[in-house]
């Protein structure tokens, strides 16, 4: 592994970590609302959250490039706020990844919240637990397997992200050249040995992550099932 390869690996881990953290923070209330609401707008918002599954990443990236550019709405907003422009920056990649990985975090959380039995929340309410208390003491522990799945999928999906990052990243070493882009650059330049090394690292990483997911999640789900029973 060269220094450039390590820098790409580090950057990828940072991007995936930051994206997952932000998605857990912002995705949890969205998922809770989607799981509990009786609003007639629910299908619309569920569809909006699922949209990144439909759009090809390079298309999504292209429109983000336009939106975040100097003529784009987001670009004008960030410039007005003094943040500057987002494309070609690490922050820009995080924003794009949050959008792109959103369904992978929100949907498992939503399913987990939907599985929280209503009577458990009602029982807590009769014991004078307020809405926040009910959420943190009852719903969150019961939804734990969903959080594990959401975190792992959000992290892994961001690691595997390519098209969006390619479109708005500019392949700057140490700033926006993540593993997937580095592998692509190696392949394009016919540096197959370098590509193989990084790709192998990625495969090992994916295996470890997914095996961990299935290991951690199975007993957790049984526990949750037992608790619900």
């Amino acid at each position, binding site marked *: 592994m060269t220094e450039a390869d390590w820098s790409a690996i580090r950057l990828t881990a940072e991007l995936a970590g930051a994206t997952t953290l932000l998605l857990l923070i912002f995705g949890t209330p969205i998922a809770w609302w989607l799981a509990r609401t009786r609003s007639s707008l629910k299908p619309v918002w569920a569809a909006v959250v699922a949209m990144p599954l439909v759009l090809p990443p390079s298309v999504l990236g292209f429109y983000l*490039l336009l939106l975040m*550019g100097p003529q784009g709405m987001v670009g004008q907003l960030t410039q007005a706020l003094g943040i500057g422009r987002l494309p*070609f920056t690490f922050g820009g990649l995080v924003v794009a990844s949050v959008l792109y990985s959103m369904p992978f975090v929100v949907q498992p959380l939503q399913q987990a919240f939907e599985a929280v039995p209503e009577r458990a929340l009602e029982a807590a309410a009769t014991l004078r637990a307020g809405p926040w208390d009910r959420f943190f003491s009852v719903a969150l522990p019961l939804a734990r397997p969903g959080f594990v799945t959401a975190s792992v999928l959000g992290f892994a999906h961001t690691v595997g992200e390519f098209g969006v990052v*390619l479109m708005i990243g*500019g*392949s700057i070493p140490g700033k926006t050249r993540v593993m997937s882009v580095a592998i692509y650059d190696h392949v*394009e330049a016919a540096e197959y040995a370098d590509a193989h090394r990084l790709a192998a690292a990625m495969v090992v990483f994916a295996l470890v992550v997914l095996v961990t997911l299935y290991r951690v999640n199975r007993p957790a789900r049984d526990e949750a099932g037992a608790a619900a029973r």
Partner: protein
Amino acid sequence: MSLALSLRRASIGIALGSTLLAAQAGEVTVAVAANFAGPLAKIGEGFTAATGHTLKVSSGATGKFYTQIQAGAPFEVLIAADDETPKKLIAEGQAVGGSNFTYAIGKLVLWSATPGFVDDQGAVLAGGKFTHIAVANPKIAPYGQAGLEVIKARGLSDAIAPKLVTAESIAQAYQFVLSGNAELGFVALSQVIGAGPPQANGRPLGGSTPTASGGQTFFPGKPVTGSYWLVPASLYGEIRQDAVLLKAGEKNEAAKALLAYLKSAPAQAVILAYGYGA
């Protein structure tokens, strides 16, 4: 869309023509570098009218075609964006020896989507009034390599390095600049001469810049504005774009005819009109 239309029109032309030319009308499967897909569609019309043969065109990156050809892709002619790939294919026995030739010479421009931003001497490079400059990946794209050579020739490598954003191709470099995310970038002249008389520093560029024939009709729906510097050829290594007959097309008369037609006066006129040197 116009490319698809003109191809469709070309194939209709062939359907009609085939009754007359049934004996020798053939088909050529062509892999063409993305930067030359537009001119090839135009050239294909003339080729079909002249010979009765039709083209089946795939456009993409030369490097990808190289990998695909090695893996047995059924292309008969490669119209590449460089001269290295055809040579490599010949050396590896994938292309017919001696069939490679330079059909066009690429011209590099430093382009900005903002009118008046780039002056006609390229002094903007040293001015440093920009945060991002786009180049295509210099390892794989000859225009990217050429852009870096220009920066180096001006002694600005260290000053510009932190501002460099690398696109995967000149098509993406074009997008970075067009969307304004990079204030300027190195692209091919053929990409930016779509909208009437091009201007540098408010003045039309003289010399080799085509105007009338390089007008809107070639790139409909592709609004090109801004300003550019046609980089003097002395500042970068020549960008030779070569074509070659691949092994799969060795026995196809239509494939040989296409290569011959690329060298003809009508084809060369189109190539010049699109902003390439011949």
